C-alpha cells in the first residue's frame, strides 16, 4: 500500500500562504532589519573627536586611517581625524565600542554597493 508522506499536509497548506522570500530590490517589506544592525560606518560626531587614534589602533582589519584634518573638517586636538577604507571594514564595530567620546557609529544603512574603491573611502 502506498503510504502518504509526512510533508503532504504542509505542502497543501503552503499553497494559500504568501511566499517566504522577499523580492528585495523592489520592496524592503519583510526584511526584518533589527534596530542594532551593524552596517555602514559613519564619523557621526566630529565635534567630540580628539584625534586620539584609539579607533585606528583597535581596528582588526586596518580599515581606519588617521589623516590630517582638511580645511572643511572640524579641527581636532591632535590635528588628525579618522577615515574608513570601507573595502577593508569587517563591520565588527570595535571602533565604535572603543571610542571614549562616542564619535563613531555603525548606522543601519545596509546597502553598500560602490562603483570604485575610491568611493569606498568614507569620510
Amino acid at each position, binding site marked *: 500500500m502506498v*503510504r502518504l*508522506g*509526512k*510533508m503532504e499536509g*504542509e*505542502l497543501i497548506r503552503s499553497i494559500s500562504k504568501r511566499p*517566504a522570500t522577499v523580492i528585495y530590490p523592489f520592496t524592503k517589506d519583510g526584511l*526584518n532589519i*533589527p534596530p*542594532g*544592525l*551593524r552596517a555602514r560606518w559613519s564619523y557621526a560626531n566630529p565635534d567630540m573627536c580628539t584625534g586620539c587614534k584609539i579607533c585606528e589602533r*583597535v*581596528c*582588526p*582589519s586596518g580599515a581606519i586611517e588617521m589623516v590630517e584634518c582638511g580645511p572643511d573638517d572640524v579641527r581636532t586636538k591632535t590635528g588628525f581625524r579618522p577615515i574608513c577604507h570601507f573595502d577593508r571594514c*569587517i*563591520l*565588527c*564595530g*570595535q571602533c565604535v*565600542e572603543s571610542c571614549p567620546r562616542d564619535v563613531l557609529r*555603525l548606522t543601519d544603512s545596509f546597502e553598500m554597493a560602490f562603483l570604485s574603491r575610491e568611493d569606498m573611502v568614507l569620510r
Partner: protein
Amino acid sequence: MTTPDERRVVVPPRVSIPIGPQHPALKEPGMFRLTVEGERIVDAEVNIGYNHRGIEKLAESKTHLQNLYLMERICGICSATHNGNYAQAVEFAAEVEIPERAKFIRTLTWELERIHSHILWLGVAFHEVGFDTAFMYSWRDREVVMDMLEDLSGNRVNYGMNTIGGVRRDVSDELRLRLLKGLDKLEERMEYYRDVAIYEKTFWDRVAGVGLLETGVAKRTGAVGPTARGSNVPVDVRFNDPTQAYAHIRDSGEFEMVLSDRCDVAGRSIVRVTETIESVRMCRWLLNNMPDGPIRERVRPRIQPNEVLARYEAPRGECIHYLVTNGTQSPERIKIRAPTHANWVSMAHCLRGGYIADAPIVLAAIDPCFSCTDRVVIVDADEHTLELVPLDVLRVRANRWYKENNRSSD
C-alpha cells in the same frame, strides 16, 4: 608505446574515485579516495591538509581583542563558537571571572548558533538524499533563528558578541520577549521536522543502516559531537566539563545529553534534531533565569604569561583552543582543533562497506561544511576514461540509482 593488450594488464582491478581536494570556498577541503567494486565501497582513504590559511600565525601578530574577530572568521557557521571560545581562553589566561549575566548571554548566543547550525545540517542532509522539499522548508524556518541572532548581535553571521571579559550587548526586556516568541515558533517547527526525519520514508530509508560507526570504533577513532553521540558515546563538553552558564544548565537537572544507539546516519540525524529541541529549551531556560548585573568586566590588554586550554561543545563537536600568553597584548601561540578534524578519522570506516550512492550522505553526516566539496573524478576501469564530475551530478546519480534499486523499508 603500449599496445592495447599490454594496456589491459595495468588496468586496476578496482575502480578508484577520488573526491576532492580542491573545493573553492570550503574552509576544510578534504580528499576522499574511494575504491569501489561495482557499487560497493571496499576501501576509503581520507586526506586533509589542503587549505592552509595561516590564521594561527596571523593571530600571533595581532592583539587579543583583534583576534576575537579573526577567530570568528575561521568558520562561517561556528562563528560564535570560535569567538566565544577564544574569549574564554584569554579570560582563563588572565584569570578573571566574568559576570554571571555575561556568561548567560554568551551561552545564549552559543545555543542559538547550535540551533541554526543543526537546522542547516538537517536541510543539507535532506538535500543530499534528494528530498529538496524538506530542505527548503527547513531552511525557511532557519530564518527565524537567523533573525533572532541578528536581533541579538546586530549581524546575521559574524555575531561578534563576545569580548574579553564579557559580552558586548545586553538583552533588553523587549528583546527577551521577542526571543521567547521566536523560540516558541522554533520549538513547534523542530518537533515537526523531527517527525519528518523519523516518519518520512523518503528520508528514513536513505539513512537507516547507512554509514555504520560502531561504538567501539567511534571511541577508538576519537569521534566527537553528534557523530559520537549518534554512536552512543557520551561525549558532550556541555555536560562533561561545563564552562560559562552550562554549569547552571547541568545543575538545573532539566537537560540531558542526547544519545542514540543506532550508530548509523539515522542515529546522527536523531541526535541532531533532538538536540535542537533541547537547545531551544536551554535558550528559554537561559532567558528566564538570566541574572541581573553588569555584562562585562574590564580586563587589562596585557595578559600575564600563562598556558590554557579552553573547550567548548561546538555544534559539530568539541572545539579546543590552546593558548599560550607571554605578558604582551598578543598570544605567543594559539592552536585550534576544530571538531571536524576529529571526525575525519572515523570517516573512512563509515564509508567502507557501503554503497557508492550513500557516499554523499555519509560524508555530509559529520557536517563538515560539505557544500563546497563539489569535484569528483571517476576513473572508469573498463573504458579507460577519466571523468570530472561535480558533487551535484554524483548526488543526482545516487538518487537515480536508488530509484532503480529500491530499498524496502525495514
